[in-house]
């Protein structure tokens, strides 16, 4: 069965800490995404990657960076966590970027920044 795995379901961090959110997919997909989900705002795109070491900013990249050193793994990095980054983070992957891309999502990582 196709899978996107987010290693941490719940994290609690302090303001100023560096935070790593990890996502691994086993479908050999070229394209991976990080979305942030907030009540009333839906899903907003932070970054996506279309190949190893290749990335593109989404709609809300400020305060975030990403890393894709291997095809199956896409990491979201909060260099210095802030309270306004408390949110649910969703990773997804897909085969193509044609716009007809059916995304496969992970279960999410809920981050609380104190």
């Amino acid at each position, binding site marked *: 069965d196709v899978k996107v795995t987010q290693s941490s379901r719940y994290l609690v961090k302090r303001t100023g800490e560096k935070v790593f959110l990890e996502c691994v997919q086993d479908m050999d997909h070229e394209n991976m*995404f990080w979305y942030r989900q907030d009540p009333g705002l839906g899903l907003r795109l932070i970054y996506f990657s*279309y190949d190893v070491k290749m990335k*593109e900013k989404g709609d809300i990249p400020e305060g975030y960076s990403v890393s894709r050193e291997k095809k199956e793994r896409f990491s979201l990095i909060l260099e210095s966590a802030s309270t306004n980054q408390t949110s649910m983070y969703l990773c997804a992957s897909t085969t193509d970027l*044609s*716009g*007809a891309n059916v*995304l496969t*999502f992970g*279960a999410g990582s809920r981050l609380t920044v104190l």
Partner: protein
Amino acid sequence: AQSVTQPDIHITVSEGASLELRCNYSYGATPYLFWYVQSPGQGLQLLLKYFSGDTLVQGIKGFEAEFKRSQSSFNLRKPSVHWSDAAEYFCAVGAPATGRRALTFGSGTRLQVQP
């Protein structure tokens, strides 16, 4: 740029009643349209999609959606809701002609089902 509007933040229906969730989009051409569902504690799952052709599409779990170009809408329907349908529903748009390579999601509609 394209946008997606889900006017209803929260809807409550009785079990067995019919359901319609609204989705309107803004885009100059025919977009790719999706409905995803997020059950509590889980990631998003694809319910159905529309790319072209028949404007009434069938999905999983007894859901269907109708693309209406004249109204820029893609409303999701189910004739008889089950308690297990309680979840959050997201409409999404793919608009490659804009150069945007990722989907744009609506703000979601939370469905509550009363016994």
